[in-house]
């Protein structure tokens, strides 16, 4: 199955995990403490986030820490606004075209 950033954020728990580890790198246990679901469920979400390359893991001593790939996250951010932006830009361009035509006519 193809994994991408959009899939990563399709789930509310994963969105919450993203927000959580955006502040600081955390261990799976520390992350799971923030949710009322099982550790297995959180692990599964973390695995998907890693597969989507939105989260990276780092070994520090005995513990594995999960942190956010900020650059990857920006991709989403850019896309979200893109569709709206297309229309905004398009219509701002139309404003200019309309006023140019109106001037010509005068």
């Amino acid at each position: 199955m193809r994994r991408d950033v959009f899939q990563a954020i399709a789930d509310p728990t994963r969105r919450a995990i993203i927000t959580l580890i955006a502040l600081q790198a955390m261990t799976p246990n520390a992350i799971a403490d923030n949710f009322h679901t099982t550790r297995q469920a959180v692990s599964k979400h973390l695995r998907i986030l890693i597969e989507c390359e939105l989260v990276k893991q780092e070994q520090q001593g005995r513990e594995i820490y999960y942190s956010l790939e900020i650059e990857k996250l920006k991709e989403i951010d850019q896309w979200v606004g893109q569709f709206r932006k297309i229309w905004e830009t398009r219509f701002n361009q139309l404003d200019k075209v309309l006023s140019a035509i109106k001037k010509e006519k005068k």
Partner: protein
Amino acid sequence: MKTNLSFDFTVDKTTKTVFVTREFAADISLVWDAFTKQEILDQWWAPKPWSSKTKYMDFKVGGRRFYAMVSPEGQERWSLQEYTSISPKTNFKMSNAFADKDENPQLPGSDWDLNFSEQNGTTTVSVTIYNESRERMEKMIEMGFKEGFTMTLASLEELLAKLSQR
């Protein structure tokens, strides 16, 4: 250019519908022409730095517009639109689909309904897009992106700003 003309953009995830409404400081004839004449359409349809290149446009019921969005690097993304209903200066409907350079549409596409009305020299255009075909867009709508993630995103933006200061 700063204007106080209203702009509204909403997405209905259950019906996979996109609504865009915008006011223009021009009379309805002019705005209608801007949407239905290729030489005007090509001037504004593509968001810069992309440009719009219409190969042909036959604005009549059953007629088609075959055009490309051209990237600054010259990459062409073709689309095929077919006009299904036209009420001059009031409404027109069309189907819209991405296509290859040989005019083969990638179905299913989306269905567009465009309404025009004028009041005191200001023209309002309401665009409704059903089954927005853009794969990503559809995905986003299914995800409830507009509704569910905007808030998270706003706070995320703050976070990113903070993080980048480090």
